[in-house]
Structure formats: structure tokens, C-alpha cells
């Protein structure tokens, strides 16, 4: 199995080279991989059906539990029939559909084969991580295939919308899967299903997984991406957006349904959104003129139907569901390929311009009619068989199931109506329109339409061919299997009557052309497309406005942000830490401190108001000298000396710098502006905060540290000095002092040489001055640290 997946990827890698040589023949080469996979899967069908379920594992990063695991069971087999079977068909079809010499051949063929491989991996994957990886690979392939060469805005928009919506769902699914895996302690899906975890996290996990499934399968309100994606080439739409990729959501739900079908968080969203989607999709399909968009809304409606059936959670609905998955894959691909032929041969897909094609192309018309009838659920086709089973399954008498049945009937009436609209619109003869001129439809392409269409017919007469696979899946539900078999004829039963009613009502609705009259019924504001647009635009706008506020490029703003956070974060820590041990707070020790403190504060306050640079520098100097004076008051004459020295040195350096600048600051706006008040407020709060911290800090020291005690005890005896500070500087930490002196000397030499060099040499260097400042500041810090 892993080999088959890898073979797809390898083939995809070489296809561009093949395309360069053989042109559109590359598609046929590409079809080999899915075709072989199909043969392989069918020939090994016994393994899947006999509950042997062969498993293959490839260790990727065993250390963190990452591995690829593939498991071959009934559901996987069914999906392979669709993925590889339709894949091979579509690739062969594309070989005729593409224009000779088209440059996109290499790209599209490689991507389609890559997609086929990813889809194969997706349905085979048995561990959540591989499932997610293949899931996202299909998303990326879809994005690239829809985007094509991206020349028009419409292409880019549609591709991006499909990518955004589905990959968002994919991420949510990943999260759900991981939650589920951690709740059950294993990443293997088969093990999770065998022993479903319980607990509070499981409902959240399943809702997240459902979100992924809903986005991928275009359920309301995520559906608008699917009609948008119809800008892709028709074969791509037939494969990705009808048969395979959009089924991934249904597949995911079907995969997990046996374990969670009783959980309200699981089935309620499925049936509610599923029914809504089914009805809305059918209704919208009745209003379309473009055949392809009509089919797209039809697909949305059918996907909703499939979801409802899984959500209903009984054995028969499960059987009906997988039957319809198969039927839908067959008839929808046939119809898309039909539209492709019409589009290619006549150049239009608008039903208002088409007329008389039915008589020109009788064979194609016959095939398409088979497919349409299967879609409408008319006997004797596979769609009818599936729908019979669905109605039978919902006829349990339970009020919930009856409500579902009513919804399904309404949706099916719409389905019949739009099926007729499609058939008559595409092949009917319109008296008011001139018959469309068209060359023959082409044998090869018509055959590709015929294969799935005829299969719908054959399988309806011989459901026993596929029934083991379908019933095998239904058996995985923890429910007893009732005695029910797929068949065209069950006798005259209630389901048959209901089917007849649906078909009659659908025909009546089509004849009465009721839907176009109701066209304006859905208010524009409800449209999901608007919701998507508003979300994307809102995100863009929000981002712009935040950027404008936060990232203004202004240094004060940046600093303000940092200061505010600085106050908030440790401030929160301060509050969280609880009340401090009460310490004795004194207003002052000596009356001299009071005028000095006022002086320092006044200087600090006025420095921001200074207009002249020199004034500002001098006022800064006053702050420094004031601090120095405070040291003297406390008896630290030596410290004060150092402080005065540093202060004077800084002042001298400043003067040298300021010489080169204009005397006044450039900003001549008034002092008291709003922006300034904010800045002043932030500065004041930050300053106060730091001061408070300092007080708290010095207040909550418990006694002298060990080192200080050691110094004080040994100063006199060991060094003979009566001043501890002296003892520390010249004796205990003499090496430090030497280092300090050396650093100071180097810095001073550097500063001096810069100043002298400037005197000798033009041009003056500004960057060098910055450097001087930097050195000085660190020196200042150093002194502080040492203190």
C-alpha cells in the first residue's frame, strides 16, 4: 500500500519531463498509477473483506511517535474504487480534453497524479498525523489546480478562498485528532475506534474534527468555496470537486461515526448542517444557468445528504450512505465529464444558449440521462437503490428520524427538479434558440462518460457485486445487522411509495418553475460568501489599524510600550507576592536630604522642558551632582568623589559632542500637548515604580550578606584599615580595582584619541561619537554595580 502511494508521488515527479516529450500523452501515462492501484486493490479485496485488514507501517520519527501507517479495510476499499477508478478515467479523459501543445499539461498531470496519491494515502491512513498530512496535501493540490496559471483575479480569488477555508478546517481537524489521540493514548485510528475514549475533552475533539470535515465537504456555512472552485478545468472539477476530494469530509465522518454515533456533540451538528446544506444546495442549484455551477450546487446538496445519513447512525443508513457515496461518485463524475464535452465542443455552458444537442449526440445523451436519473433516484439505477435504503433506514418511527426523513424528502424533491433542469437544459431543444452548432462529441471522451454511467446501471441490477464491501462497513457499527439487502425491488413498500411521491413532486416543481420565482427569497445579508469576505477584510483592516498604532517607527512609542509592560509585569508580580514584611520607613535621616531631593527632582522635571541642548545637559549634571551630595550627607565621601568625577567627565564629553549640533532642539512645538501628557504620565509611573521597588528592595534585605559580614569582621585585623571601603578596594578586591582602572584607562584613551583625532582629521565622524557615549554609559553602570 505504501508502495502504491509512493509510486504515485514518484510518477508525479517525472510527469513534467514526460509531458515535455509526449505532450498530452502524459495524462495517459499518469493514469497508469491509479489504474494499477485499482487492479491491486480489487485483487486483494478478500483481505479487506475477511477482516484481516492488512497494515503497513513506516517509521518516520519514532522518537516522537511519528509514523506512517496504512490500513486496508472495507471503507478504504470503497474509497479506492472511487479515488483510483475515477482518477484513471479522468486522467484518460483529460488527455483528449487538453489542447495539443498546452503548456499546462506537465503541471496539471503531475498535480492530478500527486492528488490521486494523496487521496489514496488519506483513505488508507491509519494514524492521525498521516491522515492530516495527506489531508493537507489534497488541499494544496486543489489550490494549485484551481489557481492554474493564476492569470485572472477570479482564478486567484477562488483558489485562495478554497485554500483558506479548507486549510483552516484542516488545522482544526488536526487539533481535534490530537486531542482525541491524547485522550485515548494512541495515534492509531483503528485503536481509537476500537476503544473510543470518553470524558470531557471528547465532545470538543469531535466538534473540531467535524469542522474539518464540514469545510472540506463544503457544508453550510463553508460551502461558497466549492462553486467558486468551478473556475478550474472541468476534468479537475470532475475529479476533485465531485468524486474525490470533497468526499474526504464524508469519509472522515464515516470513518469515525461507528465510535461516536451516539454522542450528541457528534450527530446534532451533522444532521442539522447536513439537512440545511442539502436543502439550500438543491434550492440554489435550481437558479443556476451555468451547467457546471448547477452541478456544483448539486454536489453541495448531495454531500449534505450523505452527511445526514452518517449522522442518523443506524445500520441501514450507514449502508445507504456508502452506497450513495459510490453512486454519487459515479453519476457526478459522468455528468461533469459531459459538461466538459459540451463546453469544449460548443464553447458555452449556459443553458440559455444551448439547444438541440440531444439529437446531435444521441449516445452521449443516453449516457448523461442514465447519470441524471441515478442522481434523481429513479429506478433502475444505483442512486435509486441507495435512496430506497436511506428511506428505509429513516422509517424507524423515532420522531428524530421522521424529522430527518421530512428534510431528506424536501431535499430530494429539489434534487429531482434540478436533475431535470440539467438534462433538459443541456440536451433539450429550445424553440427560441437556434440549434447549437457542434462537431461530433468524440468516441474516446464519450466512452469515458459511458463507463461510470453504465456502471450505475449495472450495479443497480447486481448490487451483490459491491454489497459485501458496503455491508462490511455498516457492520463496523456496534449495532446488530438487520436482515436488509440492497435491491431494486423490495416489493410494494412504503419507501417505494415515498420515492414515487418525491419523483412526482420534483417533476411538478420543475414544470411549475417554482424556484426562479423564489429567487430573491434569501436575503443578501445571509449569504455565506459575504461572511467569508467580511472575515478576510476584517482581519486585514484590523491588522492595519493595529500596525498603525503600535509600529509607528517612533522611539518614544516603542519605549513607552516596553515601560508599560515593565510596570505591568513585575507590578503584577509585586501584587501577587502579597504584602511585604513591614519595614520601618523614615521620611529622612538628616534635614539636608530634603532640599537636595527637591533639587534633584526639580532638575529631572525641568530637563524635559529644556529648549537648548546645553541647558538639558547641565540639568542632567545637576541631577548627578545632587546624588553625589546625598552620598556626602550619608558620609560616603569617597563614593561622592567618584560620582562627581564621572559626572564631570560625562559633562565634558557632552560638551564636545554638542559643539557639533545646533544649540536648540529641533522640535519647537508647544510643551503641553496631549501626546506629551501621555508620555509624561508613562515616564512618571515608570520612574515611581522603579523608586518604589528600590525602597522595597532595600527594606526587605534580611541583615548583611555573608560577604559583607566577612569584610567588616576582617577589615581591621587582616588589612589594618579602619575604613571598610578602602580595605575592599585596595586589599580584598585589589585585582578588581586594577581591572577597573585598566578599563577606565582604556576608555579614557579611546575617548581622548577620538576627540584629538577629530581635531586633526576632517571629516567629523558621528558614529564614533555614538561609540563614545556607549562606552561612557557602560562605565557608569559598572561603577554603580560595584557600589
Amino acid at each position, binding site marked *: 500500500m505504501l508502495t502504491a502511494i509512493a509510486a504515485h508521488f514518484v510518477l508525479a515527479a517525472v510527469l513534467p519531463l514526460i509531458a515535455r516529450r509526449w505532450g498530452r500523452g502524459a495524462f495517459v501515462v499518469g493514469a497508469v498509477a491509479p489504474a494499477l492501484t485499482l487492479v491491486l486493490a480489487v485483487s486483494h479485496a478478500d483481505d479487506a473483506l475477511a477482516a484481516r485488514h492488512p497494515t503497513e507501517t513506516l517509521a*518516520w*520519527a*519514532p*522518537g*516522537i511517535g*511519528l509514523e506512517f501507517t496504512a490500513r486496508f479495510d472495507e471503507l478504504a476499499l470503497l474509497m479506492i474504487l472511487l479515488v483510483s477508478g475515477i482518477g484513471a478515467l479522468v486522467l484518460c479523459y483529460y488527455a483528449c480534453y487538453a489542447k495539443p501543445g498546452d503548456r499546462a499539461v506537465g503541471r496539471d498531470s503531475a498535480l492530478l497524479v500527486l492528488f490521486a496519491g494523496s487521496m489514496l494515502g488519506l483513505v488508507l491512513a491509519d494514524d492521525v498525523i498521516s491522515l*492530516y*498530512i495527506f489531508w*493537507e*496535501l489534497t488541499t494544496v493540490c486543489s489550490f494549485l489546480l484551481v*489557481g492554474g496559471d*493564476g*492569470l485572472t483575479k477570479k482564478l486567484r480569488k477562488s*483558489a*485562495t478562498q478554497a*485554500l483558506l477555508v479548507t*486549510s483552516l478546517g484542516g*488545522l*482544526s481537524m488536526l*487539533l481535534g485528532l*490530537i486531542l482525541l489521540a*491524547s485522550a485515548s493514548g494512541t495515534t492509531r485510528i483503528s485503536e481509537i475506534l476500537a476503544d473510543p475514549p470518553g470524558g470531557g*475533552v471528547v465532545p470538543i475533539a469531535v466538534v473540531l474534527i467535524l469542522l474539518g470535515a464540514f469545510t472540506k465537504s463544503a457544508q453550510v456555512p463553508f460551502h461558497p468555496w466549492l462553486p467558486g472552485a468551478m473556475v478550474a478545468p472541468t476534468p479537475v472539477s470532475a475529479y476533485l470537486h465531485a468524486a474525490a476530494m470533497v468526499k474526504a469530509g464524508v469519509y472522515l465522518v464515516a470513518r469515525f461515526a461507528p465510535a461516536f454515533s451516539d454522542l450528541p456533540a457528534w450527530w446534532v451538528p451533522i444532521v442539522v448542517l447536513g439537512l440545511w446544506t442539502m436543502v439550500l444546495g438543491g434550492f440554489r442549484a435550481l437558479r443556476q444557468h451555468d451547467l457546471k455551477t448547477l452541478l456544483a450546487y448539486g454536489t453541495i446538496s448531495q454531500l449534505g445528504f450523505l452527511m445526514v445519513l452518517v449522522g442518523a447512525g443506524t445500520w441501514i443508513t450507514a449502508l445507504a450512505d456508502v452506497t450513495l457515496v459510490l453512486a454519487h461518485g459515479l453519476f457526478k463524475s459522468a455528468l461533469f465529464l459531459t459538461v466538459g464535452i459540451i463546453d469544449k465542443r460548443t464553447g458555452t455552458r449556459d443553458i440559455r444558449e444551448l439547444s438541440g444537442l440531444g439529437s446531435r449526440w444521441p449516445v452521449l445523451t443516453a449516457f448523461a440521462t442514465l447519470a441524471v436519473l441515478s442522481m434523481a433516484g429513479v429506478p433502475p439505477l444505483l442512486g435509486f437503490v441507495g435512496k430506497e435504503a436511506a428511506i428505509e433506514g429513516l422509517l424507524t418511527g423515532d420522531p428524530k428520524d421522521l424529522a430527518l426523513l421530512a428534510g431528506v424528502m424536501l431535499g430530494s424533491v429539489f434534487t429531482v427538479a434540478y436533475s431535470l433542469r440539467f438534462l433538459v437544459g443541456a440536451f433539450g431543444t429550445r424553440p427560441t434558440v437556434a440549434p447549437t452548432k457542434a462537431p461530433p462529441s468524440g468516441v474516446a471522451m464519450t466512452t469515458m462518460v459511458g463507463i461510470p454511467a453504465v456502471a450505475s446501471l449495472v450495479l443497480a441490477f447486481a448490487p451483490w457485486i459491491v454489497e459485501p464491501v458496503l455491508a462490511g462497513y455498516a457492520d463496523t457499527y456496534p449495532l446488530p445487522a438487520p436482515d436488509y439487502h440492497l435491491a431494486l425491488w423490495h416489493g410494494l413498500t412504503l419507501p417505494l411509495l415515498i420515492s414515487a411521491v418525491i419523483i412526482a413532486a420534483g417533476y411538478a416543481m420543475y414544470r411549475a418553475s417554482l424556484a426562479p420565482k423564489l429567487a430573491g427569497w434569501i436575503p443578501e445579508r445571509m449569504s455565506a460568501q459575504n461572511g467569508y469576505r467580511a472575515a478576510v477584510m476584517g*482581519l486585514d483592516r*484590523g*491588522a492595519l489599524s*493595529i*500596525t498603525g498604532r503600535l*509600529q509607528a*517607527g517612533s522611539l518614544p512609542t*516603542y*519605549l513607552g*510600550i*516596553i515601560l508599560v*509592560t*515593565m510596570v505591568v509585569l*513585575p*507590578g*503584577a*508580580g*509585586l501584587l*501577587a*507576592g*502579597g504584602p*511585604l514584611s513591614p519595614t520601618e520607613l523614615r521620611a529622612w535621616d538628616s534635614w539636608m536630604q530634603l532640599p537636595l531631593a527637591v533639587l534633584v527632582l526639580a532638575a529631572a522635571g525641568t530637563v524635559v522642558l529644556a529648549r537648548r541642548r546645553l541647558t538639558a545637559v547641565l540639568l542632567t549634571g545637576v541631577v548627578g551632582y545632587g546624588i553625589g551630595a546625598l552620598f556626602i550627607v550619608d558620609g560616603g565621601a569617597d563614593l561622592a568623589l567618584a560620582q562627581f568625577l564621572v559626572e564631570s567627565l560625562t559633562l565634558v564629553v557632552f560638551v564636545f559632542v554638542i559643539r557639533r549640533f545646533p544649540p536648540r532642539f529641533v522640535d519647537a512645538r508647544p510643551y503641553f500637548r496631549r501626546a506629551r501628557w501621555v508620555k509624561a504620565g508613562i515616564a512618571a509611573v515608570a520612574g515611581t515604580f522603579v523608586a518604589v521597588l528600590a525602597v*522595597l*528592595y532595600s527594606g*526587605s534585605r*534580611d541583615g548583611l550578606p*555573608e*560577604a559583607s559580614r*566577612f569584610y567588616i569582621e576582617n577589615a581591621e585585623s587582616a588589612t589594618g584599615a579602619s575604613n571598610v571601603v578602602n580595605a575592599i578596594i585596595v586589599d580584598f578586591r585589589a585585582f578588581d580595582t586594577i581591572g577597573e582602572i585598566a578599563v577606565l584607562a582604556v576608555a579614557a584613551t579611546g575617548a581622548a584619541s577620538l576627540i584629538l583625532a577629530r581635531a586633526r582629521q576632517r*571629516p567629523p565622524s*558621528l558614529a*564614533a561619537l*555614538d561609540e563614545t557615549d*556607549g562606552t561612557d554609559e*557602560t562605565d557608569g*553602570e559598572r561603577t554603580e*554595580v560595584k557600589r
Partner: protein
Amino acid sequence: MNVFLAQQADRIELPAIDYAAILPMLIILGAACIGVLFEAFLPKHQRWPGQVVLTLLAIAAAGVALGAYVGGSPAEGTTTLSGTLSIDRPALFLWGTLLALALGAVLLIADRSIEPGGAFVAQAGIAPGTVQDRAQVGSTGMQTEVFPLALFALGGMMAFCSANDLLTMFIALEVLSLPLYLMCGLARRRRLLSQEAAVKYFLLGAFASAFFLYGLALLYGYAGSVKLADIANATAGTDRSDTLLFAGLGLLMVGLLFKGSVGPFHTWTPDVYQGAPTPVTAFMAACTKVAAFGGMLRVLTVAFESTSWEWRGVLWGVAIVSMLIGAVLGLTQTDVKRMIAYSSIAHAGFLLIGTMALTEDGLSGTLFYLLAYGFTTLAAFGVISLVRDSTGEATHLSAWAGLAKRSPLLAAVFTFLLLALAGIPLTSGFVGKFVVFSAALSDGMAPLVVIALVFSAVAAFFYLRVVVLMYFSEPAADGPTVSVPGAFTTAAITLGVAVTLLLGVLPAFALDWAGAGGFAIS
């Protein structure tokens, strides 16, 4: 303290130094000193080759020394230089990461083929816009001091990652920061922007250092020691006031978060990333982040593990803010370098999630993430330096429209790197996110992981926008050209891309290294 007590004996005994363990750092710092001498004594035309050879040799020799030491190193790590440096498995892993990233960055710095004379100005001292400045435009020399500066910064980063006490950490912080401030201002083109970036970085960085120092002082007041292990012991005995502890930790973290450009301390990042010469930006983005988060991991794990319940809430907030700012503001950027800057802020948020986990998985996951992210970013900046027009690098996004048509290879490489940054499977970014998020998940941070996933989806949007722009738009008529990279840049980009791919496909070996052991606690 040991030193003082030892003085009572007759002879002062030097603390034991495990030279084998710190040899890589010694080689780097020693080579930096030799580089300064080269500047002083070599004639001008010999400086560039001399410096390049010296720098590359030094990094290679340090790598060899590291490799030789790792084989026989004790599993639980060792401390040396009287306990100031702790050489344990995480430190060795970070050293290896730093050396490998620095090798790439130095290769970018040394390239002179893309821009004649290199990305650095010939004489930084000349004021922009003057006559002399216009005269030097034509010169092809470059300020070769950038090589010793880079080595000093690298040495500082290595010391920062292995610092076992806060004072050593502070000195290492300054040693790594000061050269970076200078290097930011050396761009050859757009010099005013570059100098503005340098000044902003310096001023804000000085504030951050001051906060760090203040926090250090408070913690010293609390614990009576600056050693991480002593602080951890102090937090275990609870009779002291927690006020000092949390205020100190808060201030300390402000300094560390600033260096890691975690929001809301990120404000410098976009401006500096944009203004600095691209090779320096690559060096900063890759290596500084590794060093900052390496330091943060050590501080939080060794010193503050027992109080994690109290501070974790705050860091949750910081991580969310960082991811929000990075992902949402990144959406509006029109400049590639600024965009990567915001992406780095978002990634810092993701990294913080792993850092907070404080489990073995969290440690190894974060280390792996750092390795993966560093190489991806390095290569991304390498690619950015190649797309140029007549005014230098064409960093405006509109210039990148339709680049795939002009240079498919470059567009493919850049797409791959962007996908790695977005965390798409089969790239190192996916594995990194996976290990970090699963570590956080198993440590009970599920809501945060949900938020992180949402923001990684938003961030993926702007990476993909660039991809769409390159592939699906018509190239502008007067768009930029893609320079043919010289051997150095090619080597750097190849290194980054190869590692990104390798770690994405075969992450097992790197994860094993990253998870080889915890921090030495002593």
C-alpha cells in the same frame, strides 16, 4: 564567595578550569581578538581574505573541538570556572546550533559578489549624504571589523547559553549585544535607515539591559546569591518575601524577552531587521534567538522551576500577545524583511510555549525548534539578499510579483522556506511545531496550543500570500533582477535549505541529540 574564603589560606588557589569543555568558546573569543589585531596590522587589501579565513577557521575549529568534547562528555554535564559556566547537554546542543548558524551567517557576511564590495559600508564613520559619502559609493572596500564583531557576538552568545549565574549571564548579554548594535549600522545602501536602526536598537537594548540588571539586583536581594542553583534553593525555602522574587524575575524576563524579540518587547525587531544589512539580520534573527531562548530555558528550568505556577500565567499572556502581534501585524506588511521580522515575533511566541513547558519534552522540543527555525530563517534572508534592483535589495513585496517566471529556482527555494516557516509537513517547521505543541499539550496547556494553532493558521496566510504573489502574478516591467549568488551565499542558502529538508524528513537524529540530557543543576 569561595574566593574570599580561599584567601585565608597561604596561597590563592585558582579555580579548576575544564579547558576541554570551554575550548570552543575560547577559540571563538581568541579568534575575535586576533581579528582585532588583523585590523590593526594588516594592510587594507589583505584584511578581507585574512578575516574571512580566520573567522571560518575559528568556527570550524570550534566545531571540531565541540565534536571532540561531546563524545566523552559526562551525561549530566559539568560546571567549570568555579561554577559560572555550566557545560551540559543543552548547552552543547545550543553551542553546536550557534556555531552551525554562525557559519552560514558568516558566509553571507563575507559574500562580495552580489554587491560589489559586500553589503557593508567602506567607512562607517562618514556621515550619510555628505560629499565624502557620495565619494565612497564607488569604492569596493568594506568595513572588515564586522568579522571580529561577529565573532565577539558569537562568543557572547555561547557564554550566554551556558551561563550558570546571572552576573555571567549579564556580561555575556552585553558581549553579545554591543557588537550587534554596531553591526546594524554598517549597511552600504540606505545608510540613514541602517543608522536609525542601530540607534534604536542600542537605546532600547540599553533599557532592556538595565531592566535585566535591576532584576538581577532584586533577585540577589532575595536569594543572597546570583547563582541559578542558589536561587532555586532559596525559592524552595519559603520564609522570604516573594515580592522581591517576582519583581526581580519580571524585570529579568523583560531583558531576556527583549533579546528574544518576544512581543510586546518586540518593537525594535521590524525596524532593526529592515534597516540592518541583510547578512547581519540573518545572523541576528538566527543566532540571537537561539541564545536568548537558550538562556531563558536555563533560567526558568534551573532557577524558577518550583515557582512555575506563579509566573506561568504571565508568560501565557506574553506568548499570546507575541503570537497575536506577529501573526496579525505580519498580514499588513509590504516589505519582505519586515514580514520575516513579524514572523520571527510569532515564532518567538511558539518558542515561548515550549520554553514554558519545563519538561524533558519541552526542552528537547524547544531546542529542536530553535535549530530548525534558525536554518530556515538564515536561508530566507540569504534568498532575500539576492533579489535586487538598481537601489540595492528590492525588499518591497510588489517587486516580488511574478518572480517565479523570472527565476523559477529561486522562487521554488523561497517557497519551500516559507512553507517551512508556516509549518507545512515534510519541512522542519512542521516537526518543530509538532514537538513543541505536543510537549505543551502533555503539560496541560491545551488552550494555549489551540490559540497557537489558530495563530499559526493566520501566519500561514501571509507566507502563502508571498507564494501566490511569486507564482500567480505578472512580473512588473521594471522589476528586480535576481543576482547570481557567489559561492559563499550559495553555500549558506544550500546549507539552510538542506537542513530544513533534512530535519523535516528525518528529524529523529536531531531530536535524539536535543533530548540527550537536561541542565546540570549545581
